[in-house]
Each structure stands twice: as structure tokens, then as C-alpha cells.
């Protein structure tokens, strides 16, 4: 549905987007991930024909953004970072105006306006001035505006920015419900958002595409060795965490044991294996045979956050994480 090849955007002194190539299949939700200023918005603006590329081609729904911009524009819905709303218009009036801009008219437009307003949960404020609405409502009016003409491709620049947690969940559900009929690209710098909404991830940093894969694969990819979270409980209260740690370290195939938390006679560890060694069975046996209780044992999948830092952080991520970093990461999980 979307095909981008060698896309480059140069401003006077900066290279905002540097030879990016990717493809998006019909009906997919793709997360466009990167730190602020990575080139996400620029790429989206090129895809929506707002900006022309300096080099390379972008093809949306079978039309080139430079050759046939009107055809591309007919097929996309775009929600920029700040929702493009007119403060002095009422919600209904605004959606009708956008519908007309997109070439709709008459009774089909009127029914579509109320349908979209309901779908984006702005039906109850249809007759209010947009200037009087809260940020969350405005964002959803922006989303309603993007889908009014039922476009094949939806491009959403940080659709959940500025929303409260409840609204974020509702918006994500809405976006997920739009997939299938629509091909969606959404940008964000919030990682859980991608993990929860998207099937495919494009990670971009300093204008370069650093990774493109499914969420699942990316999580696996950054995880070479097995890593296990353990909670051990001593039967007598005098047992200290050090003893357990020493015992765990002697298990075959273990490369590192980190004490994450210790409360009373319960301790939580993160145990890393050597490459390609499966240690879960041995760990469980060692603990039970020492006469302790094994409360919990689970593989700790690396969160996308760590993958992201590894991919975008460069050298820093290549170093071993310090204990503090590991703790912080543990908390994020």
C-alpha cells in the first residue's frame, strides 16, 4: 500500500531524512518510532504530499507523491501533530467543511459526519465551538477529520499526545478497530503504544531507519541469551539473599545473577544464561533441592524500550548495563 524508496529530505543545513526505504502492506498498523527530531514528522509530511522529497520516491496506494499528489491526497487521511482545527467553528461544521474539502457532499456527507463523530466519541460536543473543547476532545476531532472520507491510508502523527490515560486507551482501541479497512501509519515516541497497537515497527533515528520488523521479532532479536526472573522464599526467616545468590551462581550455564529486590525472606533475582543455554529447569531444581520455595519463575522478555535504546543509543547500549540501569529497566517492565 505504501512503498518508500531511498527517501531523503534535506533542509538548508540538516539532513532530516536520510535514504529511508520501507514498505507497508494493506490493512497493517505500522508504528513509526523514534526520539523527538528523528525525522518522523518529515517522513509523514512527505507521504501526505505536504512536503516534496529531496530525493527518492514515495508511492501511496499506487500513486507517486510527486507525480499525482491529488490522487494520493484523495486516498489519505492525515492527523498532524497539532490537530488542524479552527477554533471558531463548531465540531459538526468543521467536519462538514473537511468532508467538502475531501470532495464529499450532500446527504452522504451529513450522515458520514454524525457517524464519524460517534465513532471518535465527539458526538456529545457536535454543536460546541472547537476553541472551547479540551485538548483530548480536540485530538479526537482531529482524528475524526482524518477518517471522514474513509481513506485507504491513515497517517497519524502522535495521535495520543496530550490525552489522559483513559482517552489514550480509547484512542488506541479506535485505531486498532480501524485497521483492516485502513492501512495505518502512526508515529510516536511512546514505546508501550507501539507494543500495544502496532503489528510492525519502523525505528528511525537521526533520519536513518535503524530497524524494521514485527514487534514480536524485535523483542526477540535484541535478546540473545535467556533471561529469567525468579522469586525465591526461604522457609526460615533468617535466610539472606546473598546465600541464594551464591547458590544460583553455581548453577550450570548461568552467567550472571542480579538481586532485584529483597523483602523479608523473599528475594527477586534476574538470572541471565550464557548464550544458547536453557537454564530454567536447572534453576528450579537447584532452588527446590536447597529447601527453598520457588514462588515465581518467568522468562523476562526484553521490552521494546530496551530494544529501542539499543538500536538508537549507539555505543552506550553496547556496554553492559550497570546495576542501576538494570534496575530502572526492570521497573519499566
Amino acid at each position: 500500500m505504501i512503498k518508500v524508496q531511498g527517501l531523503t529530505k534535506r533542509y538548508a543545513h540538516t539532513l532530516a531524512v536520510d535514504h529511508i526505504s520501507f514498505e507497508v502492506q494493506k490493512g497493517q498498523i505500522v508504528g513509526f518510532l523514534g526520539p523527538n527530531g528523528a525525522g518522523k514528522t518529515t517522513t509523514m509530511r512527505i507521504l501526505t504530499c505536504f512536503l516534496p522529497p529531496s530525493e527518492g520516491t514515495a508511492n501511496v496506494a499506487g500513486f507517486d507523491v510527486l507525480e499525482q499528489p491529488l490522487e494520493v491526497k484523495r486516498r489519505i487521511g492525515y492527523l498532524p501533530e497539532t490537530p488542524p482545527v479552527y477554533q471558531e467553528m463548531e465540531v459538526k461544521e468543521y467536519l462538514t467543511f473537511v468532508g467538502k474539502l475531501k470532495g464529499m457532499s450532500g446527504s452522504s456527507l451529513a450522515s458520514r459526519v454524525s457517524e464519524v463523530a460517534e465513532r471518535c466519541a465527539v458526538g456529545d460536543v457536535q454543536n460546541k465551538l472547537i476553541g472551547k473543547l479540551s485538548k483530548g476532545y480536540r485530538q479526537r476531532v482531529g482524528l475524526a477529520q482524518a477518517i471522514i472520507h474513509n481513506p485507504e491510508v491513515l497517517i497519524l502523527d502522535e495521535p495520543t499526545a496530550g490525552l489522559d490515560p483513559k482517552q489514550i486507551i480509547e484512542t488506541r482501541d479506535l485505531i486498532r478497530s480501524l485497521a483492516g479497512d485502513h492501512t495505518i501509519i502512526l508515529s510516536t515516541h511512546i514505546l508501550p503504544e507501539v507494543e500495544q497497537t502496532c503489528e510492525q515497527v519502523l525505528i528511525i533515528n537521526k533520519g536513518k531507519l535503524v530497524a524494521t520488523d514485527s514487534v514480536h521479532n524485535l523483542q526477540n532479536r535484541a535478546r540473545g541469551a535467556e533471561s529469567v526472573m525468579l522469586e525465591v522464599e526461604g522457609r526460615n526467616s533468617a535466610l539472606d539473599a546473598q546465600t541464594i545468590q551464591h547458590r544460583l551462581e553455581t548453577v550450570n550455564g548461568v552467567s550472571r545473577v542480579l538481586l532485584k529486590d529483597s523483602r523479608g525472606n523473599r528475594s527477586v533475582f534476574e538470572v541471565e544464561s550464557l548464550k544458547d543455554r536453557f537454564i530454567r529447569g536447572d534453576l528450579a531444581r537447584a532452588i527446590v533441592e536447597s529447601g527453598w520455595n520457588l514462588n515465581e519463575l518467568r522468562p523476562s522478555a526484553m521490552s521494546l524500550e530496551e530494544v529501542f535504546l539499543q538500536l538508537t543509543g549507539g555505543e552506550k547500549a553496547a556496554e553492559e548495563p550497570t546495576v542501576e540501569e538494570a534496575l530502572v529497566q526492570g521497573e519499566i517492565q
Partner: protein
Amino acid sequence: MRNIWVIAQKELNSYFVSPVAYLLLTMFAVIFGFFFWNSVGYFNAASLQSQMGGQAMPMSVNEYVIRPLLSNISVVGLFFIPMITMRLFAEEKRLGTIELLATSPIRDVEIIVGKWLSAMILYAILLLFSAINFAFLFRYGNPDWKPLAIGYLGLLLQAGGLLAIGTFISTLTKNQIIAGAATFGVCLLLWVLEWVSGYETATWAKVLAYMSVITHFDSFSKGVLDTKDAVFYLSVIFLGLFLTTRSMESLRWRS
């Protein structure tokens, strides 16, 4: 065509939901009302005097009231035009709504002409307020309507050119005040350029005077439809709108 009207309608709406249109109309009605009252008062005094003198000179309402008033409107218009055009693009750029327009299946030129058209319509409504005053002349006197109609045509053409320039200037900035001030400066300059013809007859002075929007209004205010002057205004409209399309295009390449 339909797209142009969609844009024009939206712009007119925003003029009339905000105080802008009402403020401009009120100010214009008051200012022009004063001019009219003044002009008619002067005419009355002058005709009374000529009767008292015994030798009643034939005085024409067209000559002594309508013609100077039309020139007055053309000057007053210079002050109103920046206030009409300053927000057209500057506001869209500031709010980011330009991204909505520029990513909709509608040509740049349709956006531009739509916005310019809405400014023209607002200006025409402004002129309508002056027509109310002239209606009194027709009620109590017997002026010729043709010169008046040609005068109005001239006013519309002149404003069209200046509004196109204002539209262009509005694409250059995000700040309405800057757009308004710059437009006012350009309008004023295009007015006073004519002054050089008062003392200088060299070619450069003729060129400067020719560029003045006031020079070309003379024929219209006399009730003469001169193609040369009409073409001048039409060229200014075309130039202004053309520059606007260029500016919008460069907006995409630069931003």
C-alpha cells in the same frame, strides 16, 4: 470551481463569526457617512451661494458629490484592505491548519482564489454600505447612475489588486500583525507614488506615477471606462495571485 467556493464560504464564515467583519463594516459606515454628510453639506452651501449671487450656475451632483466621494472611498479602502487580508494565510500557518488544506485533494490555486474571493466579497459588502448613502441622492436628486456604476467597478478592480497583494504578503509570515503592517506599507506606497508626477515629468517619474493605484482610478471616478486602466488593475490582481501561488509552493520546499 466547487473547491474555490468551499474555501471562500469558510473564509466568509470566519469573518462573520469573529468581530472582524462587523468592526470593519461599522468603521467604514461611520467614516463614509461622515464624508457623505460633509460632501452634501458643502454642495448645499455652494448651490445656495450661487443662487444668492443671482446667477444660478448649473451644478451637477455627479460632479460635486459622487466623484469626490468615490475617490474618498478608494483612499479609505487602502486602510481597510490590510485588515481584510492579514489573517488569510498567516492564521492558517500559525494554527497549523495550512497542513489540512495542503494535504486535501484541492489545488493550491483553488485555495488562493477562494481566499481572495472571500476578501473581495467582504469588500463588496463594505461598498454596499456606501451605496446606502448614495441611494439618498437618487431619492432627493436626479444624478446619472452610469458614472456611479463605473466608479464602483473601478473600486472593485482597484481593491482586487490590493487584496491580491495583501493575500500574497499574508503567506510570507505566521504573524497577522506583520502581514497587516507590511500590506499597509505597500498599499500606502502604491498610493503616494503618484505624487512625483506633481513636479517631475521625466520618464522615471511617469513610470512611478503609472505604478500608482490612484492614477488609474481617475478615469473610473469620472465615469469613464478606460480599458487601459482596467487592464492595469487586472494585471495587478493576476500578479498578486501568481506571487501567492509561488509563495505557497516555496512554503512546501522550505518549511
